[in-house]
C-alpha cells in the first residue's frame, strides 16, 4: 500500500519507477498466488511422486517402465496424433469461419460467436452423450448412410469419433484468437496487394495467412494442449479401444492405485506437450513470422 501512496504522490524519480513496478506486481499478485498454489506446487509434488516407488523410495523405475514399454509409447504417440489431428481439424474448419466472420456486421458476429461458444455452455458429459446418439448405430448419420443403401461404418469408439467430438468442443478456442488476429490486420493491406497485381488467392497466401499466424499459433497451442489432456470426451466417444494418456493416468490412479506411475505418465505428457509447443512457436518465430509477433 505504501507503494501505491508514493505513486499517487507523483515523485518523478527512479524511486517512482520502482514503486510503479511494485504496484504492477500487486495487481498480478492474486493470479500469481493462485497459479503458484494450485499449479506449480502440485506439479512439484507430482514430479517428486513420479520418482518414488509405492513404498516411498527413490527410483527411476516408473519412467523406465513407461519408456521401455512399446504399449505406452504407442499410447503417447496416439495421444499426440489425436491432439494434432484435432488441432488441424479446428484450423481447417475454424479458419474459413473466422474469415467469414471478419466481414460481417457486429450483430451477425455476436450471434455467430455465441453459436460457436454454445458447445462450451453444455456439460461435457451431456455433449459427449449427444454425439453418442448422433453417431450411434441407429443415429441420424447411420440412417442417412443406410438410406443410400450402404452399410454404415463403425462411427463410435474409434479415433474418428474422438476427433469429431473434440473438434466440436475446441473450435471456439481456435476461432476466437484467429478472429482477434484477423481483426488486427489493416483492412487496406489486401486492396494494396491487389493494386500491385496480386489476385485474390495470392493476397490470401502472402498477406492474410502470414499475418494471422499469431492467432493460428495461439489457437493451435490451446487446442493441442487441451486435447492432449482431455479425458471425458475421449473416454465416452472413444471407449477403452482408443488409448490416450489421460485415460491411463486415470486407471493407474483409481484402478491400479499405482500413484507414482500415474504421476510419471502425467509428467511425461506435460513435458512432451510443452516441448512440442515450445518447439512449434520457436519454429514460427524464427521463420518469416518474426514481425508478426509485434
Amino acid at each position, binding site marked *: 500500500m505504501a507503494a501505491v501512496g508514493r505513486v499517487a504522490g507523483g515523485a518523478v524519480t527512479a524511486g517512482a519507477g520502482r514503486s510503479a513496478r511494485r504496484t504492477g506486481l500487486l495487481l498480478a499478485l492474486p493470479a500469481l498466488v493462485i497459479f503458484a498454489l494450485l499449479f506449480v506446487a502440485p506439479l512439484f509434488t507430482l514430479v517428486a511422486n513420479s520418482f518414488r516407488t509405492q513404498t516411498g523410495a527413490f527410483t527411476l523405475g516408473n519412467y523406465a517402465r513407461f519408456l521401455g514399454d512399446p504399449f505406452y509409447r504407442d499410447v503417447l504417440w496416439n495421444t499426440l496424433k489425436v491432439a494434432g489431428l484435432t488441432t488441424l481439424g479446428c484450423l481447417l474448419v475454424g479458419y474459413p469461419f473466422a474469415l467469414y466472420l471478419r466481414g460481417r456486421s457486429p450483430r451477425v458476429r455476436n450471434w455467430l460467436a455465441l453459436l460457436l461458444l454454445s458447445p462450451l455452455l453444455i456439460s461435457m458429459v451431456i455433449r459427449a452423450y449427444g454425439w453418442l446418439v448422433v453417431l450411434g448405430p441407429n443415429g441420424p448419420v447411420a440412417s442417412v448412410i443406410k438410406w443410400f443403401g450402404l452399410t454404415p461404418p463403425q462411427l463410435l469408439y474409434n479415433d474418428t469419433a474422438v476427433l469429431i467430438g473434440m473438434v466440436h468442443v475446441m473450435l471456439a478456442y481456435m476461432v476466437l484468437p484467429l478472429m482477434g488476429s484477423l481483426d488486427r490486420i489493416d483492412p487496406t493491406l489486401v*486492396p494494396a496487394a*491487389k493494386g500491385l497485381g496480386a489476385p485474390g488467392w*495470392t493476397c490470401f497466401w502472402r498477406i492474410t495467412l502470414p*499475418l494471422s499466424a499469431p492467432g493460428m499459433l495461439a489457437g493451435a497451442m490451446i487446442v493441442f494442449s487441451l486435447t492432449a489432456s482431455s479425458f471425458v470426451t475421449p473416454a465416452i466417444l472413444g471407449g477403452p479401444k482408443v488409448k490416450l494418456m489421460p485415460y491411463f493416468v486415470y486407471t493407474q490412479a483409481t484402478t491400479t492405485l499405482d500413484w507414482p506411475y500415474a504421476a510419471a505418465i502425467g509428467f511425461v505428457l506435460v513435458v512432451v506437450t510443452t516441448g512440442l509447443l515450445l518447439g512449434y512457436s520457436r519454429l514460427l518465430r524464427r521463420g518469416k513470422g518474426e514481425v508478426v509477433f509485434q
Partner: protein
Amino acid sequence: MTSTPLTSAKTPPGTDAPRGRLRLDGVRKILGGKEVVSAVDLETEPGEFLTLLGPSGCGKTTTLNMIAGHLTADGGLIEVDGRDITTVAPHRRSMGMVFQSYALFPHMTVAENVAFGLRMRKVAATRRGKQVAEVLELVGLDGMSERHPRQLSGGQQQRAALARALVIQPDLLLLDEPFSNLDAQLRVRLRDEVSALQRRIGTTAILVTHDQEEALAVSDRIAVMADGVIHQLDRPQEVYLRPATDFVAQFIGEVNALDGTAAGGGTCEVAGRKVSATPVGQAPAEGAAVRVYVRPEVVRVGSGDQGEGLHGTVRDTRFLGSRIRCVVSTPAGEVTAALPFDARVPAAGEEVTCSWRPSDASLAAR
C-alpha cells in the same frame, strides 16, 4: 538521377504517345442506398497532377477507389489511354496507390514490400533487385531496404509506400490522403517532394485530399467535390480567385460573397454600384440575380469615394502578422480585405472604397 530507367521508361524511344490519360464519363456509385458519386466527368492530360478536393463524405475517396478498381462503378465509364477499365479487376489494372495508412505489409522488409508488385509481374530476381534499389534511392530510402515498416518513421513509411507504388511504373499514381498522418512540417516537406518527384517522372497523379492548401500547392488542376458531384474543375489559381459556386468559394479559404444583378459585359450592380468580375462559365443574362466572389487578398482599399467599387466605412483593422485584416462596412454588407504589409492602413471610421481587378473576382448565377 534524371536518367534512371524509371524516368526514361515513361517515354520509350520511338513511341511518343504519352501514357496516363484518365477519363471518367458519368461515373456513379451507390453505397448503402445513397448515391455517393453522381455523374462525375473528368479527363486528365498525361503527366498531370489532378486533385480531388472536398470535405469527408463528398465522394472523392469513392471516386478514387473506382479508378483503382476496389469499388465497381454503378454507372458510367472509366478509361485509361482509351482502354475501358470500368469492370476490370484491380489486380489487372496498373495503378500505383498510396494509402492514408500507407498499407505497407508489416511482415515484409521495405525491399520486399517494394518488390511485391514486381514479383506479381514475374520480373526476374536480378532485375527486380536493381529496380527496387533504384526506386528506393529515388525516394531517399537507400540503406533502409532491410528494415521492417514498424522500424521506420511516419515519413519514411510514406516514402516506402510511394516507392512501392512507383516501381511498377503504373499508368496512374493514386494518392489517398497520403500526408494526413504526418505532422504539419513533415507534411509540407513531403508534399513538395512528392510533387517534384511526380513532375520528374511524369506519371499522371490523382490526389485525394480535404486539405485545400495541399491541393493548391501541388495540383495542376483541382476538382472540387461536394455531395458526389464536381463543383469546379480548374487550375488552382482559377479555383481560388474565381470560384464557380458558393461551395467552392466557402470551402477554399475566406471569401466575400456579394449579391447583385448582372449588368452585362462582366459587370454587375451591387447595392447600386457598378462592380466588375469575371463570369465563370456562361455569362449570366442581363438582369439575372448573381453573386460576386472576391478573396480578401485581392481587395484594395483606397481612401474616399472613387466612383467604381464599393464605398463604405472601415469598421476594424487588425494586424495578423503576415497580413493586415481590414473590415469595411458597405451597403452590400461587410467586405473583408487582407492587406499586404506595406499597404497604407486605414483607420477605423475612415471613408474608403473597396475595389479589385475584374480578373481577380468571379461572377456566378445565384
